[in-house]
């Protein structure tokens, strides 16, 4: 690193030039100018000079190849926003003049294959010694008026394209410019691979005004529209990259080129550069340098063009049409067949391992024996009786799960409270949706399917099973100690004494009954609910939410009932119930 005077330090921040006036940014393009007079004499650069840090002329760097000059330009424009960049050419040398920090210019120039930094004072390019103040005005050094002024396009053209080293990266978007006769093959292959394809017609105009000496370019002066009107196909794929085999095959289409699009920050396509080629500048910087229109940069076989779209993009899937002989036949239903009879639903013996007694169907005589059977049985706590006309249903949350000696044992097949006798199956087998539709067993109605007919019970009138034998309580006489009774009576009488005249009569019965003790009920009218969680579990089970009912039972330490409910839930939700039973 070179030494610098005390005014500058190597590790200091890079000063950024203040942005230029917007009036200065419109540079005339496409015209070759002679060497310019002194920079501070032209009015358009005078305001810039006044805004820039005082007394620092621009820096001109000499390169031996245009590619190096382009690389320097790319690195410099990434580092600073200078819009007054000029290019000169002198035989084999390329000069880039721009305003930059000298040490920045030095470091970038050295990295671009040995550029030499000069001060551009007036129109003299004076070699920078690497230290000390900028040189004063005066004629010494190289006279830039003898150089030919170039444009950026010439630099790009001289920089050329080189093949990408290594494997090209995956593309998710590609453009192919090809003649119309090759379109359908590419579209068919691309649609088979699942790509998104759009196409439009474009016209190509020559990019460089004159042919460069010594290069072989296609005849740009031919005004035949057929030669320069091509179809642009945009291939894109959202999730995966475009298969490189397709791109390689597309490169073999005659008179075509496969490009990758480069967009500017606003989203317009500024540049189409050939698939396996790169320019000395990175793609995005090259795209920014192009202010309007779209460039196509390709090798000598195709050439470099400016793209002009003729119409908008159309989806290529619209190109696919069925042939004339591809008939679509209507399938109108022919109407109902009058001679089909649906099969009758029967109950047949069926082996069902793992089914348990969930409910019991009783008739009226058996109902009278229920108190004898259940009194003293743990089931009496939770069993529920649903009375009907001549049949009655004995349920329990989670199922009875025991073989009571009376009645017909039923098992619940669901969905909802739908029961069939144990050891039986439905013929033909009905899926759960059909069962739900046919019988509509829900939380208010329980259905029991017997052979040839079914019974419906109304669950609104369900009562605990112990209601069958334990409704009338015995006569309850309250046993209070005499002292407590007297004290309570005295408490009651005091407000009564204030309101009454002294000497009011008192009810002096042998057994005083203070009025605020609870009355013993003579008849239990409204049967109480089960424990709250059991009622909730039963409701969940009747509604069909078996899993919740099972979790409630499990949480309250009833594993057998929980297991039965989980098993019922698994059977109901099993998509293939006959596979493993």
């Amino acid at each position, binding site marked *: 690193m070179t030494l610098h005077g005390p005014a500058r330090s190597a590790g200091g921040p890079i000063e950024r030039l203040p942005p230029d006036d917007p009036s200065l940014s419109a540079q005339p393009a496409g015209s070759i100018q002679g060497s310019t007079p002194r920079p501070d004499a032209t009015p358009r650069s005078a305001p810039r000079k006044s805004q820039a840090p005082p007394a620092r002329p621009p820096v001109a760097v000499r390169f031996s190849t245009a590619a190096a000059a382009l690389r320097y330009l790319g690195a410099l424009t990434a580092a600073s926003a200078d819009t007054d960049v000029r290019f000169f050419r002198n035989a084999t040398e390329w000069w880039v003049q721009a305003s930059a920090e000298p040490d920045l210019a030095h470091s970038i120039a050295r990295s671009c294959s040995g550029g030499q930094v000069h001060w551009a004072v007036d129109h003299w390019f004076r070699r920078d010694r690497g230290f000390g103040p900028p040189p004063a005005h005066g004629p010494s050094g190289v006279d830039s008026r003898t150089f030919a002024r170039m444009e950026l396009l010439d630099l790009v053209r001289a920089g050329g394209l080189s093949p990408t080293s290594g494997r090209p990266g995956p593309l998710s978007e590609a453009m192919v410019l090809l003649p119309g006769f090759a379109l359908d093959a590419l579209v068919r292959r691309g649609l088979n691979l699942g790509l998104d394809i759009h196409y439009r017609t474009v016209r190509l105009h020559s990019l460089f005004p004159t042919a460069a000496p010594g290069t072989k370019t296609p005849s740009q002066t031919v005004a035949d529209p057929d030669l320069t009107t091509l179809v642009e196909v945009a291939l894109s794929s959202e999730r995966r990259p475009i298969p490189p085999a397709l791109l390689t095959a597309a490169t073999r289409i005659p008179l075509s080129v496969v490009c990758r699009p480069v967009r500017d920050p606003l989203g317009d396509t500024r540049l189409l550069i050939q698939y396996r080629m790169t320019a000395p500048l990175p793609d995005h910087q090259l795209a920014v340098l192009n202010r309007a229109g779209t460039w196509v940069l390709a090798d000598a076989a195709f050439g470099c063009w400016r793209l002009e779209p003729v119409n908008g993009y159309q989806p290529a899937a619209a190109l696919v049409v069925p042939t004339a002989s591809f008939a679509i036949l209507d399938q109108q239903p022919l109407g109902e067949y009058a001679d089909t009879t649906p099969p009758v639903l029967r109950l047949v013996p069926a082996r069902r*391992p*793992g089914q348990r007694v969930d409910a019991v169907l009783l008739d009226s005589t058996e109902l009278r024996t229920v108190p004898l059977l259940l009194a003293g049985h743990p089931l009496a706590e939770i069993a529920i009786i649903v009375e009907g006309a001549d049949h009655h249903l004995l349920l329990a949350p989670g199922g009875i799960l025991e073989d009571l000696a009376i009645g017909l044992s039923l098992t619940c097949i669901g969905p909802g409270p739908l029961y069939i006798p144990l050891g039986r199956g439905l013929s033909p087998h009905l899926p759960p949706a059909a069962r739900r539709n046919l019988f509509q067993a829900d939380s208010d109605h329980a259905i029991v399917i017997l052979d040839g007919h079914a019974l419906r019970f109304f669950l609104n009138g369900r009562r605990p099973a112990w209601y069958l034998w334990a409704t009338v309580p015995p006569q309850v006489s309250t046993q209070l100690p005499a002292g407590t009774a007297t004290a309570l009576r005295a408490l009651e009488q005091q407000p009564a004494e204030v309101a009454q005249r002294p000497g009011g009569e008192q009810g002096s019965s042998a057994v005083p009954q203070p009025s605020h003790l609870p009355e013993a009920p003579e008849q239990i009218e409204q049967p109480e609910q089960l424990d709250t969680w059991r009622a909730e579990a039963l409701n969940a089970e009747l509604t069909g939410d078996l*899993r919740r009912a*099972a979790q409630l039972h*499990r949480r309250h330490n009833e*594993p*057998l009932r*929980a*297991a*039965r409910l*989980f*098993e019922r*839930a*698994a059977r109901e*939700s*099993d*998509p293939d119930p006959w*596979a*493993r*039973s």
Partner: protein
Amino acid sequence: MPNTADLLSDPITSGLWEQAGLCYEEARLPLEAARCYRMGGAYRRAGDLYWSARLTRPAAEMYAAAGDVEMAAWLLVHHDGDVAGARAYLDGHHSVRSGPESDSLVTALLRQLVDARCAVAEGAPAESVLPVLDTARLALAGPPPIDDPRLETWSVTVAEQLSRFDHVALIYAAAIRGGHKRAAQRWSQWVSRRFGAALVLPELPAVTGAQT
């Protein structure tokens, strides 16, 4: 015979079966629990439950469905005496096995042990079986630690069936050298069970780790 290839692809249903199995286990009905695990595709647990109820054949079926044919074959040959059934399992007639499992060293050794047990049950001479015990012994003592307890247990069983108690001692010694936990304890338990005597072991030379 359930095929492991068509395990339930519906996780909700298999979860419900598993819950049912757990609840049956809590209600102390292991056979019902095993049935639910089987329906839900948890074959190994079903096999464990069947085996704890000493139902050899269903346990073997479940282990084979879970992919552990060696266990299935061992159950059949050692606890049921069914050599033909065990060999059928070993030959792979009954279940689908995944690739990487069958390549493991331990699995290959266990297979050889089951094979040896079948040979002993068929009355083969000891000379043909002892090389397998040598291989197992080398594996037990070797640097890569083996954490499958069946290697030691089954080797000891095979040696016991041959009435070669010297090989039993060699196997336990190899297990101790290989650093298996509580191998000496198991050895002394075996000696007291078989001979009613107490085991006396020399001082173990500078062995690191928990050795009792």
